[in-house]
């Protein structure tokens, strides 16, 4: 009880002391203010940067794994395209051999002219897909229906288009039910797929017209074309397992000997996400470390001001001791003063830092619209500043506590 009262009194006293020496206190804590402000700014900024990149990755789709044909760099000439290309039967074996995969679709992609009545586009991107593609890409049919198993089995000439294609080709009544020419074949539009803006990092930014046909129909249109596979792992953290399983299965099915290079590629989005996280964290740690050094320098400023204060208030210290202040109480008083000084600086710095981060976030077309200060940064700033206050306030406080009351009262 008495300790709490003493502490409250001491804190109030320190605040009053600071208030009477406003300018000096402000100068003393300037470095702390700058340091804490910079810390918040750096952490908030790099957090925003990290989140931006992660968002771009996530716009491509989390949990995703691509399997595609690839000539090995070091032994290009040893393999022919026939050995390297990925065909449907091999892709179909993936789900059975890779327990980490939840679903997959082979994709056959090509580009052909696209026409509806007088509207004609020389090239449109056509993808042959299976119905499960909607779930993997998280792009669903907004009007009409998706492909059915019969569409695939019967190799029907039906297609899905995206909103952009409906708009570009001026398809009537939302597009569904119109007949369009895809590569000079007549297709019935059975559904409309939502357009998804993939981030500019992976695409050119604005949405393009897209046409989707059943995978089997695409195979008929391009019988020799190679395909690639998009699969989805059961859980995000399974991507390493999935990659190992896929590699094992593919090498086995291609009869590659030990020492032979892979003739295919496997990429998981998660591995890039993990890398970005790691780089972001490292960057934040490094810059925060630099700022901590600035805060230590700020601590020296606090110490100098406290030493001046002790010298200036020698008589007051003498009086306090004469009327019964124990050395420990005087020590506490000056220590609290240093900590209060540091914490006030930290509070101002936190305010400025948060304000700037907020401003950066709401700035129109801000490149860091995801900027946010995590709780741990605020906590670290506060705790570190308190620590700086205690460490650098200790020497002046000990000096004050050791003053002899008689000498102190005689001090001019």
């Amino acid at each position, binding site marked *: 009880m*008495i300790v709490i*009262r*003493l502490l409250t*009194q001491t804190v109030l006293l320190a605040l*009053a002391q600071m208030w*009477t020496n406003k300018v000096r206190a402000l100068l003393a804590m300037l470095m702390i203010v700058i340091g804490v402000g910079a810390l918040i700014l750096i952490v908030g900024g790099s957090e925003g940067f990290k989140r931006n990149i992660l968002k771009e990755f996530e716009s491509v789709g989390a949990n995703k794994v691509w399997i595609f044909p690839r000539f090995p760099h070091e032994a290009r000439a040893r393999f022919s395209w026939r050995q390297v290309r990925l065909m449907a039967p091999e892709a179909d074996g993936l789900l059975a051999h890779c327990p980490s995969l939840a679903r997959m679709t082979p994709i056959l992609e090509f580009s052909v002219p696209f026409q509806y009545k007088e509207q004609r586009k020389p090239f449109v991107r056509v993808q042959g897909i299976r119905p499960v593609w909607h779930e993997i890409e998280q792009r669903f049919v907004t009007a009409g229906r998706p492909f059915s198993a019969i569409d695939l089995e019967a190799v029907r000439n039906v297609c899905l288009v995206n909103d952009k294609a409906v708009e570009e080709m001026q398809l009537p009544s939302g597009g569904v039910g119109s007949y369009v020419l895809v590569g000079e074949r007549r297709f019935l539009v059975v559904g409309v797929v939502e357009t998804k803006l993939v981030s500019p990092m992976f695409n050119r930014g604005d949405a393009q017209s897209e046409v989707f046909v059943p995978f089997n129909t695409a195979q008929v249109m391009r019988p020799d074309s190679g395909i690639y596979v998009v699969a989805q792992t059961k859980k995000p953290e399974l991507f390493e397992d999935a990659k190992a399983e896929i590699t094992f299965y593919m090498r086995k099915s291609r009869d590659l000997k030990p020492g032979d290079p892979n003739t295919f590629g496997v990429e998981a989005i998660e591995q890039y996400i993990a890398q970005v996280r790691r780089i972001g964290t490292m960057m934040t740690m490094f810059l925060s470390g630099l700022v901590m050094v600035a805060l230590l320098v700020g601590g020296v400023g606090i110490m100098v001001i406290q030493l001046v204060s002790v010298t200036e208030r020698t*008589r*007051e210290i*003498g*009086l*306090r*001791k*004469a*009327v*019964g*202040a*124990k*050395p*420990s*109480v005087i020590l506490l008083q000056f220590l609290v003063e240093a900590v209060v000084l540091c914490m006030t600086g930290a509070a101002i710095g936190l305010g400025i830092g948060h304000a700037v981060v907020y401003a950066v976030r709401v700035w129109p077309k801000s490149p860091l619209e995801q900027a946010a200060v995590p709780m741990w940064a605020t906590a670290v700033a506060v705790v570190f500043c308190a620590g700086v206050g205690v460490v650098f306030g200790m020497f002046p406080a000990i000096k004050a506590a050791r003053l002899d*009351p*008689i000498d102190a*009262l005689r001090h001019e």
Partner: protein
Amino acid sequence: MTITLTGIQKIYRVGVERVHALRGVDLSISRGEFVAIMGASGSGKSTLMNILGCLDRPTRGEYILNNKKVARMSAAALSQVRNEEIGFVFQSFELMARASALKNVMLPLAYSVKHWWGAKARARRALERVGLGDRMKHAPNQLSGGQRQRVAIARALVNEPSILLADEPTGNLDSRTSEEIIALFRALHSEGQTIIIVTHEEDIAGNAHRIVRLKDGMVLSDSPTREDPIHREYLARMATAAADLARTHPQQPDRSYSSNRSHSPAVAIPSPQSAKEAAP
């Protein structure tokens, strides 16, 4: 017995030299006494006061204050003794410039274990006791010198100390204000407060019941005021001066304050200023 000093020695070390500030002082002061400690500079009176006030520890000897052996206490323990047993009044008041009178008086209570509840009311009572009930919110620079010293006295009294220890309490005051402060001390003494005044002014010392004179770190004399030879001589000299004054300037108003003194000879004692005015 409130205070018992036996064989107090204090040796300071200045470089390689040893300075004997006190060379064996024996002194007893009982509860309710009003004692003046006198001596020229270098006599050791400041050192004695510091030891009496528990600000300093003697090199040798025993000091018993209210049955507590304080001579060998730690700095922290002495702080508590000062807080509870001793009220200091300094020559230069030592008030905190930015704090109000009330806040200044509350200062010792901040370090008090006993009286932390109702500190404000206590401080208010102490200020009323010294006649400053209407000046509580005033800062020291809004108060006159006498009022400042009253605030300091209130601060000394707020913890109800067993000793009021005043070091040249009127040293920074003019003669009229000095009279006021001395009157206050006398009033406090009549209420039963033990008071020790350290001074070099004979007329201030004359208000005490007992004068202890120090010389070269030893007690020169220790006797009731009316038996103290030096003080008697001083009074006689003042009486002659007053008589001269009365003869040359019959209309001069009598500014002495001896009339309110009960224990000293009923002689008119003018203040030193008026004596000086009379001299040429």
